[in-house]
């Protein structure tokens, strides 16, 4: 499964993404995702688990590729423990921020999730202190839903509008 946008290629995670993923998990940038962590067993398990979701669920996070390198992950995923499928994203290196790469990637993932995957709903679970992600969610049209169940303390749900049910005349 490959998605293409103007600047990006999105494909399922592959072995060549491992060093970048491990470096991201070991860095402070993973602090909103349960990191940082340097336990190799746990990091490997987290990584291989992303690949396993594709097999077990039929979809999972994409590696976001720019000019032949992976800059982060984006896509719908539904690991055990999430109340609803989540549209998730992470950009691994601060140097790749500020160019709208994730907005471009996640828009493609949203189209894919609502279209071919026909997911029933999509939320993003975000720590409100993660301002960059909150801004991106809202730029993509998601709105905070205080009553939605969340998988852990400290995050809130931003719900993505379902284009299949939107009143386009409104």
């Amino acid at each position, binding site marked *: 499964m490959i998605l293409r946008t103007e600047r990006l290629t999105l494909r*399922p*995670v*592959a*072995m060549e993404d*491992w060093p970048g993923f491990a470096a991201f998990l070991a860095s402070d940038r993973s602090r909103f995702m349960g990191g940082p962590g340097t336990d*190799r*067993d746990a990091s*490997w*398990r*987290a*990584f*291989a*688990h*992303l*690949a*396993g*979701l*594709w*097999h*077990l*669920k039929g979809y999972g996070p994409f590696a976001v590729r720019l000019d032949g390198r992976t800059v982060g992950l984006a896509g719908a995923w539904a*690991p*055990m*423990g999430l109340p609803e499928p989540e549209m998730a994203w992470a950009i691994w290196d601060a140097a790749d921020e500020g160019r709208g790469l994730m907005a471009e990637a996640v828009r493609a993932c949203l189209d894919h999730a609502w279209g071919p995957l026909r997911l029933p709903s999509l939320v993003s679970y975000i720590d409100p202190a993660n301002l960059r992600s909150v801004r991106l969610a809202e730029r993509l049209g998601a709105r905070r839903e205080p009553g939605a169940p969340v998988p852990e303390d400290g995050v809130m749900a931003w719900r993505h509008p379902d284009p299949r049910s939107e009143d386009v005349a409104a």
Partner: protein
Amino acid sequence: MTVLTTERLTLRPPEPGDFEPFRAFYASDAARYIGGRKDLAEAWRLFAADAGHWALKGFGWFTVLDAGGPVGSTGVHHPPHHAEIEVGWNTYEAGQGKGYATEAARAVLDWAWGLTDAARIVSYIDAGNEASQAVARKLGATDTGERAAHDPDCAIWAHRRPA
């Protein structure tokens, strides 16, 4: 999809329906020598990681089934922080005492020599795990006396490539 068959067993990559017996095994005391008991979320992550290993590396862990369903998991894996390719086996309660681990691991080893040029495939076995050591001996492996760099509680047992 790789499927291996033996006289009594079928081995195939993990499917979603295999999770419940996998979870029950890792919630039991049987997990004490393989990283300890795992709660639901940890067990899921490991289960999905086993499935993902196939996509990432082209080989991995199989669910082992007899006529009644899943009885264990057996496979070869090679995470990047492990020095060597490893064959491993777990037998669920429903499969205990029947020689299933040996039968399944023998089939996996026969297949796995084609995956690697290595002179040996190892099994990292906890020094206290006598049941697993017995399986390793039946498979013809020997205790090298070395310890695993990633887990000093584990001895390195070596399976030699057949001539």
